[in-house]
C-alpha cells in the first residue's frame, strides 16, 4: 500500500452492495475464525496478511496467528511443509486468534490432513480439487481420497478446481503457466473475500504497489482475485453455505493501522531513542523468529537508527555495548540460542553499567528447538541466566501493539539506570498482527539523558544518589579520560579492585540499583475482576489474549476471579506480593513448564500453581477456562 489514508466512512455501504448480488441473504455473525493453509510456497502468509488488511478496513476487531514451518520450501505436498495463517475477526472485542475455525481453506491434501482437526463441527472447508492427485494424497498420508470417503462428513465442503479457474482468469495475461499458477492464492483470496464481504480495493492497491515494476503480474493477480470473487458471487453454493456479514466493531475513535509485533517493537525502540534524542545502534544477527525486527529497523536510518548485521550473536551484543559506550543507545536482538551466546557480553554491560536493550523473540527450546513455534521458556534465562550475581531488569510485551510501549519503557529504564534491560517477546506476538490505534509521540514523556562533562570530582563509578546509576562519560569528552572493564571496580574510584569488602559493596550496589527500579514502575494493576478473591490468573507476555478472554467469559458466568498480567518481570512491581496474597489461589498459565510460577513462589512464598503448555501453539481460551473451573470447583 502507498501512503493512502482511507476513511472507512467513504467505503460503500456493505448492505447496499450485498443486495445487488445473487446471494443477498448474508448471515450476520459477530465473529469468525478463518484459517488459510497450503504449501510453504503457496503464499498463505501473504494471503492471510491481505485478508487482515481488508478486515481491518472493514472496521472489525481482529487478531492473527501465522503458523509456518522452519523450512523455507519444505518438499511440496508434505504435511511438514504446510504453512497456515489464522485470523479471528468480529464486531465484538477480539482478544486471540481464535480456538476452532469456522472456515478452512486447504490448498492441498497435506493442508487438509494437518488442519482439519481444528475446524469446528459443521464448519466450511474450501479445497482445491486440482491438488488432490494420487501423488499428493500419498504424500499427505491419505490412503483414500478424503473428498470421496467419509472424512469430510459433518463439514460443509466447497470443492473448486482452483488451478483451472485461475488459469482461465489469467489466460490473457501473457504469463507463463508457472507464473499464472502462482496467482492461485489471489484467486482463493477473492473467493473468501466474497464469503466474508471484504472490500478488494486495499489488496488491488497493494498489488499495484508491490508489482510496480511488473504491471503484468499486478494485473494478473488482480484479475485472479476478481475472478475468485465473481465465482463465489455467482455460483450455486452447496446447501447451507452462504455469505456472511460481520458488522463493524465498537472501536475507540482514532487513526488506525495494522501492526505486527516486530513492527511495533521496532518503532517502540526507535521512539525510545527519539524521546532520549540519541542515535540508536541496533546490532543483530539473523535468527528465526527475531529477524523481522532487524528488517523493520533497517528502514529507519532517517530516524538516526543504525542497523549493524554482525558476524555472529556475540559480536552483535558487543557492538551494541560498544555503541552505548560511545553515547548511542545500543540495542541487540535474538532468540533463545542467540541470547545464550550473548550472555557473557550482557554480563559485561552489567559490570560496566552501560545501557543496553536486549530483545529476545522467544521460540521453542532447548537448543535449536522449534525455530518457528512460540514458547515463553526463556524467563529464567533472562532473569538469572548469567555467571555471577548479575541482576538486570526484565520486561515482556503482551501483544503485538504492546511492544511499542514496552520498548519505550525498556529504553527509559536502560538509560535512567545505566543497565542492560531484557525485553521479552515471542514468535507468536512477533509475527501476529492486530489493528493499532496509532499513538501520538508527543504524548510520551521525553527520556532525559545527561552525559557527564564536568571533570571536577569525576570518576566513572560516581553514582546518582537516587537511582544509583553511574555517570555516563563519553569518549571525546576532555578531562574525563578513564578506563572501563569487566574486572571488579573500586566503589570510590572506579579503578580495578580485588578487595573483598569492595566486591561485597559493588555487588550490593548493582543489586540495589536494579531492585530500586521496583519503586519507579507503575504498581501492578488488575486487568479484570476484583483486587482480591478466590482465584487470580497471573500471566505475562503473549498469553494475555487467551487469559483475558477466558477470564472475561468466566466473569460473565459470575465467577469470582481476576486477571493480573505482568509487564515487569524483574524487578516485580512492589505491590505484587500483597496483591497476590489477597487471593485464595493463584494460577499461572505459561507456555513453559512453570517459570513465572516458580519465580512467584520463591519471591512471595505463595502456592502459585502452573498451567503449562509447550506444544508450540498458543493457549486456547477453552483450555484456560477449563483449568480455572477445575480449581474453583475443587
Amino acid at each position: 500500500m502507498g501512503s493512502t489514508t482511507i476513511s472507512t466512512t467513504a467505503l460503500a455501504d456493505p448492505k447496499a452492495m450485498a443486495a445487488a448480488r445473487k446471494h443477498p441473504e448474508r448471515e450476520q455473525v459477530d465473529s469468525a475464525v478463518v484459517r488459510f493453509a497450503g504449501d510453504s510456497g503457496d503464499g498463505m502468509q501473504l494471503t492471510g496478511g491481505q485478508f487482515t488488511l481488508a478486515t481491518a478496513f472493514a472496521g472489525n476487531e481482529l487478531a492473527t496467528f501465522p503458523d509456518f514451518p522452519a523450512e523455507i520450501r519444505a518438499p511440496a505436498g508434505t504435511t511438514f511443509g504446510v504453512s497456515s495463517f489464522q485470523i479471528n475477526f468480529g464486531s465484538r472485542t477480539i482478544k486471540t486468534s481464535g480456538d476452532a475455525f469456522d472456515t478452512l481453506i486447504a490448498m492441498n491434501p497435506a493442508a487438509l490432513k494437518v488442519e482439519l482437526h481444528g475446524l469446528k463441527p459443521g464448519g466450511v472447508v474450501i479445497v482445491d480439487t486440482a491438488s488432490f492427485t494420487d501423488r499428493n494424497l500419498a504424500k499427505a498420508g491419505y490412503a483414500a481420497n478424503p473428498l470421496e470417503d467419509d472424512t469430510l462428513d459433518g463439514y460443509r465442503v466447497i470443492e473448486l478446481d482452483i488451478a483451472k479457474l485461475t488459469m482461465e482468469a489469467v489466460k490473457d495475461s501473457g504469463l507463463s503457466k508457472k507464473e499464472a499458477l502462482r496467482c492461485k492464492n489471489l484467486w482463493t483470496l477473492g473467493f473468501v473475500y466474497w464469503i466474508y464481504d471484504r472490500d478488494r480495493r486495499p489488496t488491488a492497491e497493494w498489488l499495484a504497489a508491490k508489482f510496480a515494476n511488473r504491471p503484468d503480474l499486478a494485473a494478473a493477480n488482480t484479475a485472479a482475485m476478481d475472478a475468485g470473487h465473481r465465482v463465489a458471487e455467482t455460483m450455486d453454493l452447496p446447501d447451507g453455505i452462504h455469505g456472511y456479514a460481520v458488522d463493524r466493531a465498537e472501536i475507540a475513535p482514532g487513526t488506525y493501522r495494522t501492526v505486527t509485533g516486530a513492527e511495533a517493537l521496532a518503532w517502540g525502540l526507535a521512539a525510545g531513542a527519539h524521546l532520549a534524542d540519541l542515535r540508536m545502534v541496533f546490532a543483530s544477527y539473523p535468527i528465526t523468529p527475531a529477524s523481522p525486527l532487524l528488517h523493520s529497523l533497517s528502514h529507519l536510518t532517517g530516524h538516526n537508527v543504525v542497523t549493524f548485521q554482525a558476524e555472529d550473536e556475540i559480536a552483535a551484543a558487543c557492538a551494541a555495548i560498544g555503541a552505548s559506550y560511545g553515547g548511542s543507545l545500543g540495542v541487540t536482538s535474538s532468540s533463545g540460542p542467540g541470547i545464550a551466546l550473548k550472555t557473557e557480553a550482557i554480563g559485561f554491560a552489567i559490570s560496566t553499567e552501560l545501557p543496553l536493550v536486549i530483545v529476545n523473540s522467544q521460540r521453542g527450546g532447548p537448543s535449536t528447538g522449534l525455530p518457528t513455534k512460540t514458547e515463553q521458556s526463556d524467563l529464567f534465562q533472562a532473569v538469572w541466566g548469567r555467571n555471577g550475581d548479575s541482576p538486570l531488569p526484565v520486561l515482556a510485551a503482551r501483544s503485538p501493539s504492546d511492544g511499542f510501549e514496552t520498548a519505550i519503557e525498556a529504553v527509559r529504564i536502560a538509560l535512567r539506570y545505566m543497565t542492560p534491560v531484557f525485553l521479552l517477546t515471542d514468535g507468536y506476538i512477533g509475527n501476529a498482527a492486530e489493528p493499532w490505534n496509532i499513538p501520538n509521540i508527543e504524548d510520551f514523556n521525553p527520556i532525559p539523558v545527561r552525559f557527564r562533562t564536568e571533570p571536577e570530582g569525576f570518576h566513572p563509578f560516581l553514582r546518582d544518589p537516587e537511582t544509583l546509576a553511574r555517570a555516563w562519560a563519553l569518549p571525546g569528552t576532555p578531562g574525563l579520560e578513564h578506563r572501563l572493564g569487566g574486572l571488579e571496580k573500586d566503589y570510590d574510584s572506579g579503578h580495578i579492585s580485588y578487595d573483598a569488602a569492595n566486591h561485597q559493596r559493588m555487588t550490593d550496589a548493582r543489586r540495589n540499583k536494579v531492585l530500586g527500579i521496583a519503586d519507579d514502575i507503575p504498581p501492578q494493576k488488575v486487568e479484570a475482576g476484583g483486587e482480591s478473591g478466590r482465584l487470580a490468573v497471573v500471566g505475562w507476555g503473549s498469553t494475555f489474549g487467551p487469559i483475558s478472554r477466558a477470564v472475561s467469559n468466566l466473569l460473565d458466568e459470575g465467577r469470582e476471579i481476576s486477571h493480573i498480567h505482568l509487564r515487569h518481570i524483574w524487578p516485580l512491581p512492589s505491590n505484587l506480593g500483597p496483591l497476590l496474597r489477597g487471593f485464595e489461589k493463584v494460577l499461572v498459565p505459561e507456555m513453559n513448564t512453570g517459570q513465572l510460577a516458580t519465580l512467584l513462589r520463591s519471591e512471595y512464598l505463595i502456592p502459585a500453581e502452573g498451567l503449562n503448555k509447550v506444544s508450540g501453539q498458543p493457549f486456547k481460551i477453552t483450555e484456560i477456562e477449563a483449568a480455572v473451573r477445575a480449581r474453583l470447583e475443587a
Partner: protein
Amino acid sequence: MNVVPSSDALTSKDFATDQEVRWCPGCGDYAILKSVQKTLAEIGARRENTVFVSGIGCAARFPYYIDTYGLHTIHGRAPAFATGLKLANPELDVWLVSGDGDALSIGGNHLFHLLRRNVDVQFLLFNNEVYGLTKGQYSPTSRSGMRSPSTPQGSLDAPASAAVFALGAGAGFVARSVDTDQKHMPEVLKRAHSHRGASFVEIFQNCKVYNDGVFGKFTDRDVAPDMQVRCVHGAPLVFGGEDEKGLRLDRESLTLEAVTIGRDGVTEADILVHDETSKPLAQMLAAMEPPHLPVAIGVLYAVPGATYDRAVAEVVAKKTAGGKPDFNALLRKGATWTVS
C-alpha cells in the same frame, strides 16, 4: 584519521596513567607501551579523542596504562566493541590491543570481520606464541611440537601466521615490528595510524616467563641482520650486515628465494623492489620463515580503501540531512483508517 594536533603538545609521559604496570619483569609489553606512548605524542594525539580497546590476556591490560579513554572488554571480542563504538562516533581514534590467543583463537572470527569490513582502527597484535595470563599453554601461533602444560607431549596442530591471515581477510594495511626495536616500531605505528581503514600490526613480543627467546633466531642481535628483511616501499628487499643479500623472485615456481649479490651471477638488478601496494608480494613476504628465508619486517602492504564506519556515517548523514524527522509520520506511513 583526522586528528588535529593539540596546540599544547603532549609528551609521551602525558600518556602514562597513575596505575602501577603489572606485567612480569622483562616482558616485551613494556617496550611496546613505551613505543605506543611515544607514537601518540609524536602524532599529536588528543587524549580525549583516543580510545584503546582490548579483550582478555596480558596484552589486554594495556588500556589501563594509557591515559586516554580505554575499554577492557571480554575475550576475543574487542573488534566487535570497537566496531560498535565507531558506529556511534566515527570521529574517535580507536586502537585495539590484542594477543595471539585473543586475536587468532577465541577472537579469530571478529578479527576477520573487522579487517574485511575495513573499520578505521589500528589493531596491534602482540604475538608471543603462548598463553601468558593462563600460565603457559600453547597458542594458535605456537610452533608444532611445543611442550606446554596442556601439551606435555608436544602440540600436534600447525600454527597460524598472523600476517598471512590478515592479508587473507582483506586487510588494507599489514605491518610487522619487533618489541625491542624502539626506532622501528613508532615509525610503523605512525604509518598504521595515518592509514585510513583497518591497520593490522603484528608485533613480535617476547614472553620472558613462558616462551623466552622464541623469536631469538631472527631477533637476536647477532642474527637479526641476516634473518630480517626490512620492507621499505620503493627500496630493494635487501638484508645482511652489508645489505649483500636480497630477495629474488623465482619465476618458474613463483616463490621468493634468498640470494647473495655478486654470487652465482646475481646482480642488484635481480633483487625485488618492495611495492607495498602489491598483494601477491605482500603474501609472499608474510609467508617467509627462517631458516631458509628471513622474516619480513615493516609495512608489507598498504592500500587505502573505503571504510565501513565512514560509509555508514555517510548514509546516515544523507538520510538525516533534513533534520529530526517527523516520528508521527513514520507511525502513520502506509495504509491507515480513521474511526470517528
